[in-house]
């Protein structure tokens, strides 16, 4: 039996060898030319959405990041409005009507031209399907010719370009082609290759790109919400780069410049606090603002933020405001002028009642860390602190006004114009209005800013309004998040120099 088995095995082996030999004899055709390796970039993203329909929710941020959609205008790294699918926009004398001229070269990845009809349909659709832009439904659109159309906004709207036409939600898609949720046909340098809802997104070079030659063959966007995983994927070489690098990871990357390139630029997400005028006297608010050391906070946060003076970056024309330097002696003098005296514990009190500030915060964007740093800084001058942490500020202290000092974080500059932020923060009737800051003078200035068309005057007005909030000690601006991007040294143009989160890869992106 054993002999029989051995014989069969030898036979099988011999047949296999013979088959191999025959195969080798057959494979005499010349070897094919080596195929050039495709240049594919791999990027990690912290968010992922369930659809690629740029007009819905915040999907447009991501289709823009993926290099798929483009808007009529874009916001440059210097915060200026620049032409993209449109070459120019002119407002009528009464400011109600804008005439938009499209770039005749612009075309979709399927070769179809970008026409006035298609753009108008896109803009109208955003008004229908995006909750944040329902006001667009009231605009009147009129086609002049294939590359020219007008938009009548019904009221003077000087920020139409920054608020709407350059906003990523207004990415232009060919509404008659493709599947808008999974593979929309757009105008960007890349087009969808594969899409996993809330997962990995793969894009490939748009061979028909109208605005230059695309250097990469494709990009893979990996959804990774965990910071440690991103760090290790970068270390193992599985990804080529990502933004929103943590302070700890930044240190690791910076220690090895031969493997990693770290780019840090000031961005637009603001950490600030609101001082409640209804519960804190003028002198106490002044003492608080003289005590808070924003540079100390920025240092502690390891370079992920830059100390702020106002809500906007100092380089912006509407970011020219000033605030007093940290002066704890002056802070204590302000408290003493208000009748506070130090008790045996070194804490200020009045009529036997210790001075305690109720600081409300939530655990995101380092606000919890800032709250503890503020506690330390306040205690050093003799101000007691009651820390109140909540899960969700938007349904608690922000809408109830139950705080002395409320910490918050938001994007202050979403499109290179100050009106959105000023309107959200300082208006009467707004949530922060409960803290007692808004006044008629400020309200009049905000109204003027809303309809002012001159850019210089707009900056002047914004500076005036923000300065009022500083002088009144109604707000304190702590820090502006830096956009920190890490990549392999050879990688360029992944949005590392844009202060906005919604710009990433473009035709010039390379590795």
């Amino acid at each position, binding site marked *: 039996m054993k002999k029989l088995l051995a014989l069969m095995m030898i036979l099988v082996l011999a047949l296999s060898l013979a088959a191999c030999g025959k195969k080798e004899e057959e494979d005499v055709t010349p070897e094919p030319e080596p195929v050039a390796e495709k240049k594919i970039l791999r990027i990690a993203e912290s968010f992922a959405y*369930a659809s690629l329909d740029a007009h819905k929710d915040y999907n447009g941020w991501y289709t823009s990041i993926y290099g798929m959609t483009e808007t009529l205008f874009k916001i440059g790294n210097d915060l200026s409005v620049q032409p993209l699918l449109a070459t120019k926009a002119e407002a009528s004398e009464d400011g109600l009507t804008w005439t938009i001229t499209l770039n005749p070269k612009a075309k979709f990845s399927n070769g179809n031209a970008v026409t006035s009809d298609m753009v108008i349909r896109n803009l109208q659709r955003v008004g229908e399907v995006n*909750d944040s832009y329902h006001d667009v439904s009231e605009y009147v659109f009129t086609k002049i010719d294939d590359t020219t159309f007008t938009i009548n906004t019904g009221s003077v709207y000087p920020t139409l370009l920054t608020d709407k036409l350059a906003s990523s939600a207004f990415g232009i898609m060919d509404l008659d082609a493709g599947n808008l949720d999974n593979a929309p046909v757009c105008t960007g340098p890349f087009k969808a290759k594969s899409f996993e809802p809330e997962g990995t997104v793969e894009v490939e070079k748009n061979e028909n790109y109208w605005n230059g030659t695309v250097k990469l063959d494709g990009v893979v966007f990996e959804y990774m919400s965990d910071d440690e995983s991103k760090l*290790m994927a970068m270390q193992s070489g599985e990804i080529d780069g990502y933004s929103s690098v943590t302070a700890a990871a930044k240190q690791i990357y910076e220690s090895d410049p031969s493997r990693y390139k770290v780019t840090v630029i000031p961005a637009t997400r603001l950490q600030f606090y609101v001082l409640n005028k209804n519960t804190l006297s003028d002198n106490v608010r002044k003492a608080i603002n003289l005590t808070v050391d924003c540079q100390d906070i920025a240092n502690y946060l390891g370079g992920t933020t830059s100390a702020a003076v106002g809500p906007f970056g100092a380089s912006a024309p509407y970011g020219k405001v000033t605030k007093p330097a940290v002066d704890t002696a002056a802070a204590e003098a302000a408290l003493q002028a208000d009748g506070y005296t130090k008790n045996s514990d070194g804490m200020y009190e009045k009529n036997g009642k210790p001075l305690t500030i109720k600081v409300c915060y939530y655990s995101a964007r380092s606000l919890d860390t800032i709250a503890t740093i503020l506690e330390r800084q306040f205690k050093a001058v003799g101000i007691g602190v009651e820390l109140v942490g909540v*899960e969700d500020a938007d349904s608690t202290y922000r809408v109830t006004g139950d705080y002395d000092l409320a910490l918050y974080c938001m*994007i202050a500059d979403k499109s290179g114009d100050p009106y959105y932020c000023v309107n*959200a923060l300082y208006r009467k009737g*707004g949530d922060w209005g409960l803290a007692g800051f808004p006044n008629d003078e400020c309200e009049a200035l905000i109204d003027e800013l809303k309809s002012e068309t001159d850019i210089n005057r707009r900056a002047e007005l914004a500076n005036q309004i923000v300065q009022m909030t500083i002088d009144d000690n109604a707000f304190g601006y702590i820090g502006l998040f830096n956009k920190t991007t890490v990549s392999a040294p050879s990688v360029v143009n992944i949005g590392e120099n844009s202060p906005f989160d919604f710009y990433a890869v473009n035709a010039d992106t390379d590795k």
Partner: protein
Amino acid sequence: MAKYIGKRMIHLVGIMIALSFLTFLLMYLAPGDPAVKKLNAQGIAVSPEVLEAVRKEMGLDRPFFVQYGDWALKVLRGDLGESYKDGLSVADKLAKALGYTAQLALGSMLISLLISLPLGMLTALKKDSVLDYVIRFFTFFGNSMPNFLISVLLMYFLCVKARLLPVMAVRSLKGLLLPAVALSVPMCSRFIRQFRAEILEQLSRSYVSGAVTRGVKSRFILFRNVLHNASISILTIVSLTLGSLFGGSVVVETIFRWPGLGKLAMDSITYRDYPVIQGFVLFTAVVYVMVNLFTDIAYRWIDPRVRED
């Protein structure tokens, strides 16, 4: 048996009604507005007018009982609703996540049983030996390490240093390995101690010493008697663990990008995505009841005395 199963199904309906009502109430009372979460997802301030319009559109301005009643009626018609976050069907989202969670749950359970059953038996048989102490030390260690630490350590040594596996778990057997091992480490540690205790308990019974006196082979006693008698306790431990694994493992799923139920539930709570949370709670209730039911049936099969009771 059919009567018994029918009775358990009736219990299930009661549990589902009570759980869904309680969850809906808790979510309603908890701070957090789904409309704000939806509009403010990227940190952009929302105007009060837009917020009000969206709340109305989502039906959040209606009284609690109207919202709950509306949801419950839909569920009775077999419709779990749509996600507030992305408008996708809740049933589809749960089904997709369940597939991944099932792979992870079964994978980690398999690894855990393959390791902990033999080691549990070995430590019981070699009680108070050096081997017993060494294994128990490691189980103590594994039990006290949080999942995120195990995950990060595994990732660092196996993916970054040794380059044996990818950091980014692909949706395959290879991708499943690391998250399953990460889940298995504390599970094995717990199982080994529990199995050891149960086998020692059985070994101390008089039927074992009787069998030894009668000259029955020790291998026979161990596998036919001891293991068989310990199997009810082992089954209880395994089924309870399996039930919780099917509820998802948030930390491991997040770190390894494994899109299972735990991550879905966590994201839904963060976004105040009520329909998905409700669907998840219902699903978890069903899983627990079903796992318990199958365990009870298995008890009856293993031990006829349970059937008589």
